[in-house]
């Protein structure tokens, strides 16, 4: 017992001793904390507080006179659990909101809404998706959120001619499979990558960009697109893996390369600790990431380091649309997240089809094919492959611990 006490005393003493150094260090701390990314002689880009909502945006409520069978069902397929659950939750809350608004306004047409969990894992997605296509009542689907699972299951939808609109899968190759049932409710990476490169070199005036990508389908695609568009402005590149927590080796390479800006193609789960460690090592430039990084979780996990961060996203800032924001908050008890509004809009496209009497899979599919109207976030009109005609890419920055939009970029 005595010895045990001795051990803990030693432990405490050991830590105390070493804290001494940290304490000394901390006193000189404030002077060095003053500098952070954006204001290091760089352009200060103001944030915007409103976005233009299309006047004639189609809303889920419709005219209130719709009638349909009580079995009419829409489905969401995507992550509800697992490591990427948050993105899925953002989306299906958006869909749920649309369905609720529709059903409240249309007593004659109560559309059912079912959720199927894929955990965002392509290997687990075939089961739920097959179940969806085998349930005859399901005539339209919003999903799947990720490129990998979309790739693994696209042909199943195709076999059963069931229309599905992805609110967030951005891999450009998805529309090259010849699928007629796949639609994308946002711009793909081939749009976002060059836009991000333009943003880096023009708006941020970056001269030495270090590109880091993760091992995801998404990160690789975007990293490649962006580095190609950057050309000589890129001074180096590295790869990290999903789940990585320690980025010290990448960071020392970045510091040695004297990069002024880091572009990270991947998700916030790795992006946040990366940025945090980067700043902790004394990096004073900007950190730019795509839509996968743009999430409140990024700020939460990167801490005050996140103030050097900018994001690019083919998504509209849904929180700037007051009606949507307040309604969403009521439903989900949280601010709209990334892709909430895409989920909402995608559901609206399908619901308005139902309201127009397109109540079979076949009808609804042709409805979406020929759809040409504004949604809350953008204009929806797809080409033959399922890509949107003219998607915008928005820029965002971190301001006072919040993500603030800075308007359309890359034009």
């Amino acid at each position, binding site marked *: 017992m005595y010895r045990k006490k*001795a051990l803990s005393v030693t432990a405490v003493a050991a830590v105390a001793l070493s804290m001494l*150094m940290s304490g000394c260090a901390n006193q000189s701390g404030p002077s060095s904390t003053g500098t952070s990314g954006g204001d290091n002689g760089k352009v200060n880009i103001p944030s915007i507080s409103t976005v233009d909502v299309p006047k004639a945006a189609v809303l889920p409520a419709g005219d209130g006179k719709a009638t349909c069978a009580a079995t009419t069902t829409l489905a969401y397929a995507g992550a509800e659990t697992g490591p990427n659950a948050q993105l899925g939750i953002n989306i299906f809350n958006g869909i749920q909101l649309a369905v609720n608004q529709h059903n409240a306004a249309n007593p004659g047409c109560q559309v059912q809404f079912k959720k199927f969990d894929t955990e965002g894992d392509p290997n687990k997605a075939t089961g739920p998706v097959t179940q969806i296509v085998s349930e005859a009542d399901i005539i339209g689907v919003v999903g799947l959120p990720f490129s990998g699972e979309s790739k693994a299951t696209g042909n199943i939808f195709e076999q059963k001619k069931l229309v599905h609109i992805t609110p967030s899968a951005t891999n450009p190759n998805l529309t090259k499979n010849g699928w007629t049932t796949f639609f994308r409710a946002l711009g793909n990476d081939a749009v976002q990558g060059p836009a991000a490169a333009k943003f880096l070199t023009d708006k941020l005036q970056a001269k030495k960009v270090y590109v880091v990508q993760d091992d995801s389908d998404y990160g690789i695609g975007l990293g490649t697109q962006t580095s190609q568009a950057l050309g000589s402005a890129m001074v180096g590149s590295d790869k990290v893996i999903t789940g990585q927590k320690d980025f010290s080796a990448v960071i020392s390479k970045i510091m040695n390369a004297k990069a002024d800006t880091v572009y990270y193609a991947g998700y916030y789960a790795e992006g946040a600790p990366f940025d945090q460690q980067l700043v902790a090592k004394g990096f004073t430039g900007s950190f730019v990431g795509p839509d996968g990084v743009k999430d409140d979780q990024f700020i939460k996990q990167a801490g005050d380091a996140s103030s050097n961060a900018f994001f690019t996203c083919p998504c509209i800032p849904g929180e700037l649309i007051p009606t949507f924001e307040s309604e969403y908050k009521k439903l989900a008890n949280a601010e709209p997240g990334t892709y909430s509004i895409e989920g909402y809009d995608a559901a609206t496209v399908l619901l308005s089809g139902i309201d127009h009497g397109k109540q079979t899979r076949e009808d609804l599919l042709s409805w979406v094919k020929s759809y040409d109207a504004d949604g809350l976030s953008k204009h929806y009109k797809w080409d033959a492959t399922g890509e949107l005609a003219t998607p915008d890419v928005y820029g965002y920055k971190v301001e006072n611990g919040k993500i603030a939009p800075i308007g359309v970029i890359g034009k």
Partner: protein
Amino acid sequence: MISEAIPSLIHAVPMAVPMDDTWITFDVNSLAENFWSSTFDGLTFGAIYALVALGYTLVYGVLNLINFAHSEVFIVGCYGVFFTLSALNFGPSAPHLPFWAIVGNLLLALVVAVIASALTAVIVERVAYKPLRRRKAPRLAFLITAIGVSFAIQYLIYWWRGPSPEAALTMFRPTPIFDVFGTIVDSQQLVIIIAAVILMVATDQFIRRSKTGRGIRAVAQDPDTATLMGVNKEKIILTTFAIGGLLAGAAALFYVMKIPSGVQYNGGFILGVKAFAAAVLGGIGNVRGALLGGLLIGLIGNYGQVLLGSSQWTDVVAFVVLVLVLVVRPDGILGTSLGKSKA
């Protein structure tokens, strides 16, 4: 696939290599350039691995059991740190507090983490392993139970805190202390390395000199004889779990210090695997082996990734070295001293 791989083996472009066609480079320039920074980063992480590895090694020494749940013992410690610091109003920004206040706060966090981890370890042993021992279950049953406990704790935390990591809390902003050949060593790295080494030396001395330590060694060598000699085996086992937990709690503080966003339901798993690898590398059951193995795993991984061109290589290099070492020295670098020698 080979035809694509081979030309890239002779690639040695130091910078800005195109991303598509190169997957392995032997970039000696990069290693030379980043050698010292890799060394200090490697040592920092290595120290954390070593502390966690001690928990594996002690339990293995006494029970011959890979305590897979040890990574969860560690992550509970991380949550202990997180909640203490949240309660003390630490935020994403480094607080501007007087020196002793910071030391006091961190010590408080340490105490909470240590208690949380040690308690978890003790509960796991009582709830999961002891019943198995009483029933004389086969060894695999222990391992599967360990895995089950690991899953259960992870998903208890998941259920309670959700899938996302906790918000980052900065304890203090690292500041440069001195530099070695142009590489800056900061206060954070020094704190972690020094504190961890002191803790490990203390553990080593404790196992070597104290009465409890002698008991642990006796049980490790021969549980039945130890019992006959008047050692209370059950108490020793419990103490061993507690010490392992205590060290994991300390490791948790340093880990959260280094990676504030690492507090997540499954955040301990991979770290646990690497710490276990470290314990085996040094010689499982051997306290000094855990220290050596931890530091080596940290260093090798860092050198490897700098040499081979991307941080994706860290774990590959670490595991390949582990396999090579075991082929040459089947009992690890320092051999198994706490545990039994095998016939």
